[in-house]
Each structure stands twice: as C-alpha cells, then as structure tokens.
C-alpha cells in the first residue's frame, strides 16, 4: 500500500512503549496524527487541512456510489520496447512496482456511478513509478474514453503524475497525442469529461488529457504545472515565488475551475456531472 511509506516516524507513548506505524507527522503543520484519525478524515490533516496522497482504491471508494464499481483496468500490460536500462533495467523496475502496488502499471479504475450518473473513472497511481505515463497508461485512458463514449458514460480522470515515463521515451511522448485525441470520442457524443488534479500533476500528463477537460477541479495545495520546480529553478537561477505552481496559484491564473477540498470532492463532482451529463437529471438518485 502507498500508505506504508507515510509511517516512517515512530512515537513513544506512555511507559516508553514503542508504538510503530500508528502515528505520523503532518509535513505541513508537523502535528502528530493518529493514523486511524487520518484515514477517517480521508487522509486530510485534521489540524491544518493538508491533503496527503490518497491511494487509488480509496479514491475510487471516495468518488463512486457504493456497490457500483466494476474494474476495467489491469488487462493492459507493460512491455519494454526499448530494452531500457539506466541504473536499473526497466523490466526490473516494472516488476518492483508491480510487487509494491499489486497492479501492472500506474492506473486503476473502471465503471460505476457518481450519484447515479453513469461514469468511467480512472485514477493514476503515484505509488507506481511516480504515476508516470507510458504506453499502458495511455492505452487505458484511450480505451476508457472510447468505452465511456460507447456506453454513454461521463469520463472522470484523477491525475497524479510526475509526467511521461522516460523509459519508454518517444513512445511515452506519443501517449500525449493518443490520449488527447481519444477524448474527442466524448466530444462527438456530448459526454462530459472532468479532470481532477491531485498532488502532483506535472509534465506530459498536465500537457495532454489532464488540461483538456470540460471542467477541471484540483485538490488544495497540489503541485500542478508543466516543468517541475527544480527544472525551472535551474533555468531562471532564482527562487520561485511563494505558492508557485500550487492549485490556488493556478486557480488565480485561470487554469482551473475550482479548488475543492477532498471532503467536498464527491458532491462537487456529482453536481458537475448531473448538470453536464445528458441523462444526469433523469438518473439522479437511481
């Protein structure tokens, strides 16, 4: 699980008893939070509202109506077309991430309903290779868009990605065109596409399908941009302005429709889909 690495801190309580992995520290306000409290609060710090990353399965549970989810991803498997090797062969990296997440690549999702509106939801998995987009992510998104169009569903994609996957080089780059063009199947059928940007969404993912939705929502404080802050800093050789490339900054610059706290994400998404989806009003509450 992606949550494992959050629990680095150990905290000693009462009588010097060591209680590992039950507490963690909020990186924003440094408060010690009881893990169960954090989970009960949708992985949002109860003290300061900092949004921790949410796992893909929890994301699906958060957004879809209970009992409606049917997984569609998982059949598309990665290859190693370039036999890429840097400090570690790509094949071994893939195996390691598969082991860690239990999934073949950095995307998870399927069909379901959002307050009754038929939807196809895809969530990018940051825990798998930083949510990077290679051929599998591109293929799942293209298939998702095509299936949503064929079945009259809204498409919702939750982005969480460092960008394109370097180990698939030019083929990763091509996924930007492939996913972008696949979205037009929805356009033709007047079906809505909502993009939810979470921390972080950068590079080739922002610069393709994630930026092209009818409505773009973002979680608070998420890093969103084209180039990463480190690259920009190197280029301009200056410190970056406070809050640069965070959700609120992007809202201010006109790139997003709303910044929505996680507790209101489901209801906001439902409202948008209800208003945009051709059968939204009819299927509401069904």
């Amino acid at each position: 699980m992606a949550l494992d690495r959050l629990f680095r801190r150990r905290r000693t309580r009462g009588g010097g008893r060591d209680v590992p992995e039950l507490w963690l520290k909020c990186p924003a306000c440094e408060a010690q939070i009881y893990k169960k409290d954090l989970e009960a609060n949708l992985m949002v710090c109860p003290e300061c509202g900092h949004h921790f990353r949410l796992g893909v399965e929890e994301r699906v549970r958060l957004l879809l109506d209970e009992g409606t989810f049917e997984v569609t991803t998982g059949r598309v498997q990665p290859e190693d077309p370039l036999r890429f090797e840097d400090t570690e062969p790509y094949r071994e990296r893939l195996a390691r991430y598969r082991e860690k997440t239990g999934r073949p690549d950095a995307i998870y999702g399927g069909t379901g309903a959002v307050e009754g509106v038929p939807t196809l939801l895809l969530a990018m998995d940051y825990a798998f290779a930083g949510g990077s987009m290679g051929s599998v992510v591109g293929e799942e998104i293209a298939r998702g868009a095509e299936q949503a169009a064929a079945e009259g569903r809204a498409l919702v994609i939750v982005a969480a990605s460092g960008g394109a996957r370097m180990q698939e080089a030019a083929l990763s780059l091509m996924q930007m065109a492939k996913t972008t063009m696949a979205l037009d199947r929805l356009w033709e059928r007047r079906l809505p596409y909502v993009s939810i940007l979470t921390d972080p969404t950068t590079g080739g993912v922002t610069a393709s399908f994630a930026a092209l939705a009818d409505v773009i929502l973002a979680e608070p404080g998420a890093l969103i941009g084209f180039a990463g802050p480190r690259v920009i800093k190197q280029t301009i050789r200056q410190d970056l302005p406070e809050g640069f490339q965070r959700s609120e900054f992007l809202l201010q610059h006109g790139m997003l429709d709303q910044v929505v706290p996680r507790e209101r994400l489901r209801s906001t998404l439902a409202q948008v889909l209800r208003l945009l989806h051709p059968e939204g009003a009819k299927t509401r509450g069904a």
Partner: protein
Amino acid sequence: MALEFEQPILELEARIRELREYAEEKDVDLSDEIGLLQQKLERLQKETFANLSRWQRVQLARAPGRPTTLDIVENVFEDFIELHGDRAFADDPAVVAGLARFRGSSVVVVGHQKGKTTKENIHRNFGMPHPEGYRKAMRMMDLADRFGFPFVSLIDTPGAYPGVSAEERGQAWVIAQSIQRMGRLKVPAVAVILGEGGSGGALAIGVGNRVLIMENAWYSVISPESCAAILWRDAAQAEAAAEALKLTAHDLRELGVVDRIVPEPGGGAHRHPERAMQALAEALAEELEALEPLGPEELVEDRYRRFRRMGAVRIE
C-alpha cells in the same frame, strides 16, 4: 565550429583545398594526388557517418548551419509572408508562422526557430516557445482549416520554455490545446522534425497525418542531458542516456513514431543545407500529394488511427 568526429574530415578537405590552390598557383598537375585524397575523403566520410553513435547524431541535430524554419520558408516554399502574434499577449520569436506557396498551392507553415548567432538565439529564446508561440500556431491551424490549405509544421526545439512566466500563462494548457487542435485539422498535415524534437514542446506541432524526420535529427520525451540528470543523477551521462532513449531517425522509424526519413547529404545537413532542403522539398511534395485524395473527416480519422496505435503493450 566543427564537431569532434568531423575533425579528420575537415582536415582532409583543407588539404585538398591547399593542393588545388597550390596546383593552380604554380600551374602544376596534381590531379592524381587530389583524386586519391578525394577518394579517401569520400571513404572517410562514409565510414564516419555510417557508424555515428546516437550521441553524435544529437550533436549533429544541434549543429549550427542546419536548415531552420526561416531557411526552409525562403528556399523550399515561395512567396512566404510571415504572420505574427497570438492575438492575446505577445508575438513569440521562437515560433515562426505564415502563408506560402508550395508547388503552386497555398500552404500554412509553422515552425520553431533557433538563432544562428548568440544574439539571435537570445532573441529566439533558443527555439524554446512560450505559450504565445503555441497560441500563434493554433491561429495558423484555424487559418489552414478556414481556407482548406495544407498545414506544414517544422520542428526544432530543445523543448517548451520551462520558466515562471510560461507556467503562469499556462504552458501545459496550450501544449495540450495545440495537440488537440492539430489532431482536429480537416486539411492534410505534415510534420517534419528538422533538428531537435524536444518533448511536448515539439509534439504540440507534431500531430501530422505524416511525420517526417531529417536523417540526423532526434525526437524524444526528454533531452539526453535531462534524462541523465534524472535517471543517472549525473548530466555527464548524456551519452548513455542518448543510447538508452533510442532517439534517432532510424530508431523512431522502427518504433513507428515517424513515417519517413529524409536523407541528409554526406557530412550532414549543416554542411550542405541546400541539398538537404532539396531532399526535404521532394519528400514533402510526395507526402502532400499522397494525402490529397483524403476528405476532411478522413484526414481526422487517419490522424487518430496513426496515433491511436502508438505504444507497446500486451493485452492479457
């Protein structure tokens, strides 16, 4: 300024030149010697260029003297008129756009533009566009659709500019929009990678029905230097990264990312730009002619099918 692996070729060329001058000056016949050296030169050039490493190709792709967009609109096209501005914020000198005539018909041309001197490179931002450049490109796509003219794009950028202002004005957003807009073109679209095809900043004008690449150009998701800095944590590993990325014309042809390689004259396009442009003109004419029979909807569908099959996956 010569590349390291070009040195022996250039030295031999210099010797031949000297001998010729000497022969002329002294009025002696050195044609046998010169002939032999010529043969040696040709052999050396052939050998050097047949065994170029990927990293050497990257250096060739960046060599000053290669045909740029402005060279091509002047030499391959006729009657070019440059059109400026994004109608929103500014004109981006890293992107050149306009109308021209090609083999008797009007076309719309958009391309990245690097400078030939340091001063010009600063003006052109080393061919790295801001959002305004892509907005200008999209204006040109509208123009092509409105008049039914073929759209030709010329790619030569290290990447879209990674700066604060570019981020503030939605670099990711305009790249995405430009990809989408180009995908929707109802006219034939041919993209040519002239030199550097750096990531999304290149792809933004790379959604052609046909994608061509000059023999010594590169195209990938990241530059070898940046890739090395991230994966090897050492930018000096760029050579290894270039190998791993498989970013040359021949690699990309094999991966199905490009449709056609435009051959460069011996020694590279930077040494014989006219001949390189001649080869490009011929390839461009053939590709545009091949697309002519397709109707507006067929062209959109053709482009979707072309990019839809990109990638390497296995279905279980």
